[in-house]
């Protein structure tokens, strides 16, 4: 689950920053469709992650091939502060949060 969460963080970060060129580092995990979905549904995902459930989370889980959606949703909610450190996370903030979390 921790890996999945990191993948998701990466997707969110890349999508937020519009940095598709960074994705080669995570080519295996960042699938284009998931990235597109996250980029187009930032606000609704943020709201659903805060609430701990929702159709957009379910959709993301399907795109990332995650079977245990309940656990996925709960993990995202529990890690809300890591995913959304600040209102307008800068590149440095977000990367720091990812590397800190993946250690």
């Amino acid at each position, binding site marked *: 689950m921790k890996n999945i969460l990191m993948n998701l963080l990466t997707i969110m970060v890349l999508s937020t920053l519009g940095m598709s060129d960074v994705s080669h580092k995570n080519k295996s995990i960042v699938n284009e*469709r998931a990235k597109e*979905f996250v980029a*187009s*549904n930032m*606000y*609704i995902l*943020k*709201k659903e*992650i*805060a*609430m*701990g*459930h929702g*159709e*957009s989370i*379910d*959709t993301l889980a*399907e*795109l990332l091939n995650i079977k245990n959606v309940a656990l996925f*949703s*709960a993990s995202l*909610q529990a890690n*809300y*502060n890591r995913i*959304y450190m*600040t*209102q*307008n996370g800068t590149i440095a903030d977000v990367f720091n949060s990812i590397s800190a979390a993946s250690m």
Partner: protein
Amino acid sequence: MVNGESEIDDVQFFFASDGKTNAKSELDATLDALFQEKSFDDNSSACKFPARKAWLKEKLNINDFAKVTCKKYDDTLKKLNPKSATLVYPSAHISSPTSMFGHTLIRINSGYNSRLLSYAVNYAAEVESKKTSMFMYATKGLTGGFSGSYSLLPYYEKLKEYRDTEQRDIWEYDLNLSEEEVLRMFMHIWELKNTKSDYYFFTENCSYNMLWFLEIARPSIHLREHFGYDIIPLETVHAAKEENIVESVNYRASKRSILLKYEELLSDENMHLPRNLVESKIELNTVVDNKNIDKQQKRYILEAALEFLEYSFAKHYISEEKYLSLFHNMTKARAALGSGEKLNVEVPQDPLDSHRALRVSAGAGYRDNKPIGFLGIRPAHHDLEDSNYGFLRGSQIEFLNLQLSYAENNVSVEEATILSAASLNQRSEFFDNFSWRAKTGWDRDYMGEKANFISTVGAGYSWGNKLAYIYLMADPLFYSTEKIVTAIGGSLGLVIDKFSYMNTNLELTRRWYDTREEQWLAEASQNFRVSQNLQLKFKYDYGEKQYLEIKEKRETLRAVLNYYF
């Protein structure tokens, strides 16, 4: 193709110069183009017109068309991965006159379970809303002055538009089309996506084109034959049901319905907190750190606040800066409260079970103690006394309503409405909309022997609960009789609509004319929904008009049977 003429208006759609009207020369030109391709990539004729190629291949058994590679087409097809199709009906949007007939679109479902990953086929008039006045809008809409075009959009984008911004409940009717049928439809949509057709509100509108796609998917169905002169979006869904292609139904609550559900779940003492948070009247920590509010109520407060925040932003009530900062702080506070109860919005009555658009009526009764008979016809669509089953509460839209009466060997016009509409919008914690209604046509409320032309637009407020709603309206109006008379009317109404099998409508009106005439009008009706398309109505109405000592009075009691089809 209708009467030998194609309904596509764009010359790019045809190979032959007379392709719109001459099917034979279009066929020859198409065959030429496919055999003698000039380019062999996305620009080739075969890549632009895959449906025609597939059709010719099958019908004429041709296997030696020029070989081409269609990268764009293949990529799109791979991404859409069409498996099944759904007819989507975003229902009427409260208080917007142009949406009151609703809208329909086709959704092409992919192999994913999530319906958010499917694509919507959208056909819409290109209206530059800021530059188009209501008058131009109506004129162009009726005469085909707008150009309509197709687009394929991710379904989640359509949901943002209809469910979130316009707050329309969405009904999804899954169709029993096979994968092969859906693919055929996709190929056809591909051919059309860069072409334009003239858009007519009542005939070649969004819904008409959807019917066309469905007929292409399955040529044995004849949806368009269900329609004569006008196409009301909801009627297309009824037609699909009659052709037995609707398999199942799914409801998505609009942002409005979601907020109304939170109003039910919030306790009285917490009711104002979400709005106060969004309007920055209280700080977030006064809710989060309050030990007297239980945890689930805190979750509801924050969730409702988030929904209301999004609503307020969509309505431009708050700035983007404020929206972003509140959104961030509220989601953060909500995440800290862990997962809670999922919101469960009850599924409303299915619009497919609502009465049809065309109404005929016959009735009999007494007017001033003398027998009188009534006959009526109304092509579209719904008034407040019709059964509200499956309709948006408090909404009315009527087009060309004609009611005749017969008494003492005289036929008279009781009512001839050109257009009437109403949106009685109940006010609540999150919604402080006003209500409005408008009518133009002929009626007999001015008393006298015949119907007079009236035009009126009024506004007011409405409040309601589960049992009923009331409304208070002020309606300025004018009548054209021998001369023009103007008046202001004040109405108080009550509609009891809790029970699906009946509704009770009461309205009392006082009018003051510039001629110093004064008037009382009262109506009371008890309406029973006998079945989906049959209504039994008992109605009493009273009118009086007084000028100095002269007083006219009229009382009518009637029983009417309404049949809808």
